């Protein structure tokens, strides 16, 4: 079940998938929500981000007019809700490259990713060879309850649960945590927001927003830059107290049909200078996926 050349292998309905195949042209999808945005986390995100996102060409909600016909500036909560409200592809499948850069030297990883809505993600490692087959599953529970994360270790033929504290660990040596990758922990309702400033951008204002998690976690606050028209944050800073831990920036976005998706994101560890560069390619959205895609069974299936 993977994309190869011009062929999409998803277990069934291959012909249909071929038709839906998107190769650098329009049709995107990312987009998920704030989450994505936010947190960005995620490889999301990037993928996701992308993923989630949104129909880029659908203008974000227009701020209500205030007294005297003057548009009132949106609140931070409103901005983030607009980020979250972007339509999300029902499903997404693509290739992901992750480059770990330290001291000018890099380690490369190639992965394949599947997502369903904003709740389910599967990532399988293709390269390097010594981690090929390693697979990660994340399922967001409905209503913000307990989430599920599983890791398949092909050498041991074993699926292992990624427990609460382990979600804050580095994802395969990258600057992303498992939570980041899964886009978890970034639900809009999990944060309180404050508008810090409004900067002037090329296409309109850029909202600078502080997000404080309602429950304690690895980050005590996030700082987001959300440009108009609102799609998703273009930059996110992660703080622990007053210390800036990491910075996520969207380096490149691309229009795919009705979606506008980030195709390159960079996470930088501020203390070490280590960077993780994520690039998304061969993205296809709203593809038919087998019912067992987001299960332990699929994790163990060969690439």
């Amino acid at each position, binding site marked *: 079940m993977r994309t190869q050349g011009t062929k999409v292998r998803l277990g069934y309905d291959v012909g249909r998938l071929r038709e839906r195949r998107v190769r650098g042209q329009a049709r995107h999808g990312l987009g998920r929500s704030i989450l994505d945005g936010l947190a960005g986390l995620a490889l999301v995100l990037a993928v996701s981000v992308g993923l989630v996102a949104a129909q880029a060409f659908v203008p974000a909600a227009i701020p209500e007019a205030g007294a005297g016909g003057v548009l009132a500036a949106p609140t931070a909560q409103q901005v983030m809700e607009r980020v979250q409200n972007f339509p999300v592809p029902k499903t997404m499948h693509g290739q992901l490259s992750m480059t770990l850069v330290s001291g000018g030297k890099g*380690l490369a990883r190639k992965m394949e990713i599947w997502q369903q809505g904003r709740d389910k993600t599967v990532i399988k490692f293709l390269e390097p060879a010594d981690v090929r087959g390693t697979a990660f599953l994340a399922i967001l529970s409905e209503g913000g309850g307990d989430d599920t994360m599983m890791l398949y270790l092909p050498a041991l033929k074993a699926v292992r649960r990624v427990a609460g504290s382990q979600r804050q660990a580095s994802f395969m040596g990258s600057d992303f945590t498992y939570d980041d990758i899964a886009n978890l922990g970034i639900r809009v309702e999990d944060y309180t927001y404050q508008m810090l400033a409004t900067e002037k951008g090329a296409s309109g204002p850029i909202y600078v927003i502080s997000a404080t998690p309602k429950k304690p976690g690895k980050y005590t606050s996030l700082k987001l830059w959300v440009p108009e028209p609102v799609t998703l944050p273009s930059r996110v800073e992660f703080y622990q107290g007053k210390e800036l831990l990491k910075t996520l920036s969207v380096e490149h976005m691309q229009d795919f049909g009705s979606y506008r998706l980030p195709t390159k994101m960079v996470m930088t560890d501020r203390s070490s200078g280590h960077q993780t560069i994520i690039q998304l390619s061969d993205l296809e959205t709203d593809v038919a996926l087998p019912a067992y895609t987001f299960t332990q069974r699929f994790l163990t299936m060969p690439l």
Partner: protein
Amino acid sequence: MIQRMLMRRERAWRQTAARWLARPAAVAAPGLWGLALAVAGILAWGPSPEVSAQDLTLGGRLQVQVGVPLAGTDSQLVDPSTELRLKLDNAKDQGAFHADLVFREDGAQPLPPSWNLRTAYGTVNAPSWELSFGKQVVAWGNTDLFNPVNVLNPDDLSNPTKDPADMKLPVLMTKFTYYPAPGGDTSLQAVVVPVFTPSLLPEPGSYWAPPAPEYPQAIPVQGALVPVSRVENPEISLPAATPENAAVGLRLGTTLPVLGGSQVAAVYYHGHLHTPTPVLQVEPDPTASQQPSVILKPALHYDPVNTFGAEFSTSVAGIGLSSTVGYSLTPDKDGTDPNTANPSGMAVVEASYVFANGLNLSAEVAESYAKGDRGQADQWTTQTGLLLMHQPTDRLTWQTALLYNVSDKGGVIRPQVQYTLTDGVTATLAAFAFFGPENSQLGGYHDKSLATLSLSCAF
């Protein structure tokens, strides 16, 4: 007395058994049938004209390792090995084929370099079921160090410094898994292992071989000591390859909505123990003309067993919790037959936590039970395992593992540093330091402590 002596010398007996057992597993197993299986699999799943060449994936790993003794005055290199592993994967929409061909030259084993078709199996997928056939490993249980239900495959006990991923010996088996709800995690798995394969023990004369067995010079018979005239070669009795000796395993697993989602499973295994039960038979020496004497006939056999087990994993307050329990019933339920293994059980609890600085801590505690023979107390054993792991950079990983037997005070500590030179190329420096009383399970290896350096290249 003889039985007690046998218990003390069980490990030594295994050395003798290894002479017979190691070769069939390491040399014969990768023979023609395996090759034929691989070829058949490749043909069955071979690329069709319309299939991209990327369906067929070739890869592998080359690894060299040397060891330096940490104890004694012997400063020569020990335990050198070279391993080339070639992997073939052929995946399609409704099926896949996988094979591992391994070339190994192991200085710790007095065996010639050999090629071994380690795994070769094919899988067919359907929305609600999956069928897999061939030489493979099926792992049960969710605790890593101690696991009483991971019994489908025999163990490779020939070298404790081996990669844990290679500790299970692939065997020919059929695995069928049924998924009542294709989008769910509930599954019912049935496994059939048609031919018994014993665990692989250290080859006599190898670095890890235990001391040679010491047999008594005389045996008490009716109050008098009767001299032993000779000790015959051990007789190894493997279960015959008949349908009634086929091993069968069943596993039912699902996720329960408790504690934020807990995974549970129940398992059952019917087969044979993979490690032998030693028996020492004493017979009069018919050739003795004047003074009576006896002949010792050691034998090793593999007892039938029925294992019942359960798995559980969840997380509480950020701590990952896993547990595996298993109880094995043998034909000697009451411990009345000294020549048959007694019932035994084990309960394991594992907890893992990742600190804010990325330090990963995992701890396991295992409590084992073995019914005593008639007139003897039951045996209870407590073992612990601890793993500390940290990855300060994307290239550097260090870990320290400790295995300690609380009951016999023996253990081993293994620090390890691994550095990624470039993509797929890693260098690993590790040490295995055994400690504890000489008669403890691990302390007996204290003179085997060593440091190893390995270089691995995956492609």
